């Protein structure tokens, strides 16, 4: 077991960003889905120790993030975190940026540190951009550079907040390959449901600051089985409908119309149905 959150909550003023949440994160790739404002980033920041929770305790690799300074530091040594938005320092090269962060991650020996920086640059495909100033990199390259800093030291817990933003399909596939092959725990917050279905062993859906689903991808898909249809007309009461490239209308949820046939749901379909159920529950 790598990380645990026990009754962790966060309020900003009178707004509850995260209701008391208990999660246990074991080895593997875990996807965190949820709409904007669901509390995903708050949860990730708390887990990474960048933000203190209002209540509850967090532990990473047996070290309490919410404990003493020494415990928090010990936990931080095992965490790699990619924030949602990264503002890069001015005037640094890719190598210089990673080298500086490696020092902040306690890589004291210059030779080892430089070797580690070169390793992560190669991992994200930026080995040939090492001496280029960060401001001269493209958006996708900057995102990969930000991912590279999280990979420094091969942390036991890798927390990635929307890592694929700005990456082209090839780069996304490359990132999947990189993450799927690594040991330890990877927690990815994303809006890209195809990344979840392609990569994750487990999915946690967060909405309104609460965990709405926590299970495997097949379990999430099973929750939508028989509830997604294609036909000539849209399902009455469907959560979402759209005309596909075949000319048929795909309906997520609702009552199947005449001639509509059930199709295999995707993670996105299941997510939309889950969101719809949550919204209906909240309205009720």
């Amino acid at each position, binding site marked *: 077991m790598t990380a645990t959150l026990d009754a962790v909550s966060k309020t900003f003023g009178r707004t509850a960003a995260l209701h008391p949440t208990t999660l246990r994160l074991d080895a593997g790739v875990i996807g965190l889905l949820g709409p904007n404002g669901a509390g995903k980033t708050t949860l990730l920041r708390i887990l990474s120790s960048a933000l203190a929770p209002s209540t509850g305790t967090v532990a990473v690799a047996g070290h309490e993030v919410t404990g003493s300074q020494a415990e928090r530091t010990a936990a931080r040594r095992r965490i790699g975190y990619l924030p949602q938005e990264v503002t890069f320092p001015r005037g640094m090269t890719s190598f210089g*940026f990673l080298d500086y962060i490696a020092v902040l991650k306690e890589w004291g020996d210059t030779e080892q540190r430089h070797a580690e920086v070169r390793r992560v640059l190669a991992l994200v495909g930026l080995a040939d951009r090492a001496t280029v100033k960060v401001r001269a990199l493209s958006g996708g390259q900057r995102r990969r550079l930000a991912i590279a800093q999280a990979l420094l030291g091969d942390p036991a817990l890798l927390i990635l907040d929307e890592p694929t933003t700005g990456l082209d399909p090839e780069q996304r596939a490359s990132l999947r390959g990189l993450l799927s092959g690594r040991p330890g725990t990877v927690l990815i917050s994303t809006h890209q449901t195809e990344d979840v279905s392609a990569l994750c062993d487990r999915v946690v859906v967060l909405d309104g600051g609460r965990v709405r689903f926590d299970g495997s991808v097949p379990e999430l898909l099973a929750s939508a089985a028989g509830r997604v249809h294609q036909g000539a007309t849209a399902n009455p009461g469907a959560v979402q409908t759209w005309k596909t490239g075949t000319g048929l209308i795909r309906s997520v949820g609702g009552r199947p119309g005449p001639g509509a046939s059930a199709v295999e749901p995707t993670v996105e379909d299941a997510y939309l149905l889950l969101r719809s159920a949550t919204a209906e529950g909240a309205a009720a």
Partner: protein
Amino acid sequence: MTTTARPPATSMLGVLARQEIRHYLVAKLFWLGAALLVALCVADFLNPDATNGAGDYSSSVMGMVAPSALLGVLGLIVMASLARRSDRAAAAAGSVAVPERTRTLALAAAAVVPLGVALLWYAAALAQYHIHPPAPSTVPFGPMTDGHVFAVMFALGVVPAVSGPILGLFLARWLPGRGVTPLAVVLVVLVTILMQGNFQATWHWRVVWPWTYWYGPIGWNTGTGHWMALPGSPEAWIAYLLAVCALGVLGALYHDPESDRARLRLVIGAAVAVAVLALVLTMTLGLPEAVANPIAGAGG
């Protein structure tokens, strides 16, 4: 589980300080200031009596404004920029083992770069003082000693090379907005102009401000050809300035929400006490009143 071997987490301050020193050393603004200072030093050596156009004094006793501006004021900007860069890098990583206070100390350590240049300037100024002694119409005179003059040269020429960058660090910690640095530079220069001792009413308490003249063709006496020496002890003032520098670093350290603030408050309290004591000693020791050099200079 960590699969890549990580070296033991000891003494990261030294490693980080070396990084920040390197960053300071490659800052363009630092090089601009250092190059201009070297050029001024060389010019003074070649033509030591030309500084005020009157040909009546050695530039070594009045040239402190150059290092204070070129290393101190520019150092404020350089350090604020380095601090912001460090903060951005730390924020980009989101969560790192090295805390903000270690980064702050490492940045403060980078002030050795301008300090080193300022000490070289000081050595050159002392050499200049001996090779081309100041004219009798300047300083020292009357109760003043060479040590008094050397202390003033050190306080006004060397200490700003540290206090400027530390002010930049302090401001970057507490007021990280980008417009703050240029505004601070303008304010520092404006207040320094007002506090440099031109007004007789400020002569006793002007030493509160960390840059003020101690002698020269000052205030109402300007134009008479007689130099003035203002009251106070420059030796005690150096202690005051160093205490203010320490307070700047402590204040910057206090910004770290994870620091031991209760302990820091005690240390800050002690540093304030030392600063106040040194300030009182500055005002009470040394020259009790302003005195004028009886020898009129060529400029009068």
